[in-house]
């Protein structure tokens, strides 16, 4: 059974009287030892999906429907107190801004010790020892526990956050753009580390990024979001090589590379979707070169086209994107 199962998740924000459908019907599974990379354009609902799973939404956000189960437990129905117990202990999140994740006036080790002691009944000494082991695991010298956040470089802070995320031996780690702010060398070290830890601790990882090359190199499975919908999900090779959804195909084509000739990049024509006023039918139809009248009228179903490879497009599997992928 999958560690995390998300079914038809919908989360809306309220701006005055307006309803903003940030996430609207997202379903996916993550098994232990697997990483799902979630990608899609800015504002498509990636962070909102993560925050809904962890139930740490902004005050004006509400889960409107759907289910999220972690190790068989339905998270959307837990009380706030029960959910607090799950956070860190069963599921951890690595936020995008390393700089903002720690309190600047407290020593880093101290802050992790507190997280551990809040969740596990453990003595102070034991907790300090655990932090030392974790620091070692993520490639930080254990004596640096006594440092303040400003004494760490960006790459070191990011490792400390991963150590904190691992502190309570979770089943699921959600990493929201964990390496965006880092250079490629530090990035690759951290991603290697995550992979090693994943095998060792049987972790399921939800990896959020807008960077498709990072997804291509680091995730087993890929989910592509558009306007609050998951439009395609499958293993990485299938999604990259045999995209089923026109949006995924376009998104992959818009990525700059250092191999091949330098060219003006192709981007997706048309306006980004207005979440306060979504189009009828398929939300991508106004920008889709293959759109037919059915796309304007009917919302496509999210269906399995080939084994394990799902897409939300009326013509999934029938389209020829040309040029060969």
């Amino acid at each position, binding site marked *: 059974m999958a560690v995390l199962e998300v079914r038809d998740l919908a989360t809306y924000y309220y701006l005055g009287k307006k309803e903003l459908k940030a996430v609207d019907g997202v379903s996916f599974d993550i098994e232990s030892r697997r990483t799902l990379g979630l990608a899609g354009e800015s504002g498509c609902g990636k*962070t909102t999906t993560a925050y809904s799973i962890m139930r740490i939404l902004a005050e004006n956000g509400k889960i409107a429907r759907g289910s999220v189960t972690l190790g068989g437990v339905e998270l959307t129905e837990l009380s706030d107190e029960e959910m607090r117990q799950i956070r860190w202990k069963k599921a951890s999140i690595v936020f995008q801004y390393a700089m*903002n994740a720690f309190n600047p006036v407290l020593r880093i080790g101290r802050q992790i010790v507190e997280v551990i002691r809040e969740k596990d009944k453990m003595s102070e000494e034991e907790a300090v020892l655990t932090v030392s082991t974790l620091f070692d695991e993520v490639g930080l010298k254990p004596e640096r526990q006594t440092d303040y956040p400003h004494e760490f470089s960006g*790459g070191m802070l990011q490792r400390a956050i991963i150590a904190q995320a691992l502190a309570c031996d979770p089943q699921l780690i959600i990493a929201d753009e964990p390496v*965006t*702010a880092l250079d490629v060398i530090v990035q690759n070290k951290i991603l290697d580390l995550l992979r090693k830890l994943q095998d060792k601790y049987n972790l399921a990882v939800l990896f959020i990024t807008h960077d498709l090359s990072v997804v291509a*190199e680091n995730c087993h499975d890929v989910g592509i979001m558009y306007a609050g919908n998951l439009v395609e999900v499958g293993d990485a090779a299938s999604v990259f090589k045999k995209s089923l959804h026109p949006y995924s195909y376009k*998104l992959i084509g818009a990525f*700059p590379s250092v191999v091949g000739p330098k060219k003006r990049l192709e981007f997706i024509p048309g306006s*980004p979707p*207005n979440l306060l006023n979504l189009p009828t039918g398929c939300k991508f139809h106004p920008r889709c070169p293959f759109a037919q009248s059915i796309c304007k009228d009917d919302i496509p179903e999210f269906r399995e086209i080939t084994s394990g490879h799902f897409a939300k497009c009326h013509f999934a599997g029938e389209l020829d994107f040309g040029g060969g992928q």
Partner: protein
Amino acid sequence: MTTNDTILSVQDLRKWFTLRAGLFSFNRQPSYVKAVDGVSFDVPRSGSIAIAGESGCGKTTLARTILRLVEPTSGSVLYNGENIYEMNRLELSELRLKMQLIFQNPFEVLDPRHTVVDLVGEGLVIHGLQENDEVLHDRVISALEDVRLIPAEDFATRYTHELSGGQLQRIAIARSLILKPELIIADEPVSMLDASIRTEVMNLMTDLQKEKELTYIFITHDLAQARYIGDYLIIMYLGRIAEMGPMEDVIQAPQHPYTKALVSNIPIPDPTVERDRIMLEGETPTPVDLPPGCRFKPRCQEIGVYCKEDEPILHEVASGHWVACYIE
């Protein structure tokens, strides 16, 4: 080297931060973080220069010092031939209108108590450039549309906490572009944007460059992005320039061992391509108490005899292509 066509000339610039006493208690001498440690380069008018290098190598400090948001330790920066460190307040204020910085972390600079309209229009108001409220509003709306925040009216009334990471970053870009500057120093301006919107924003930036003869200094740790927007590339390592030259020359034929490692680590958007990566050992050192000789030496795989003694200086290996390394 400086000619009429040079808009900005950075000359032997240094910015050292003093470490608080007690932080390194074993050392009673004051220690310095040599964040920028002798950097020189010229920026041609309407050119676009990309500056890349790993986290902590001094990119942001360089940008802030060039704009005189912090005072330099030594060196000079000439803007159209005028030394900006000798300018008075009025001249500086005019300069800041012509030379804009897009900050790295939008969360830091965008005041959460202001709405998007106010944040984007702020510069025009401060510099007294708004004709009337209506014109101001229209200009803000079109600036928002330029960075693909559409429908702009829906974004205009929101506060920063009601936006996603990439949306905030675009507000920061719109805020600078609206002032129609001559030179933009953009510090990781698109790091949080997905490929498609990033492409549109980068295309917008290159289009503006052609139309308005804008000059860019584009700071990034992403060489694929650097390649897309820049025609000249500067690679920094611990406060100094390791290598610089025409973009394609540096990317296709890197000379410095550090540049070679960086290039080999660039991810490629294709899961079937396997590449040999040059891994750099060791944690990135901090620019405090640097070793004698070459500062890259502790992580270098090709150490020669001179490397231990003197800091290598930049020398030209091909037309316009400069490298600070002894190894041929």
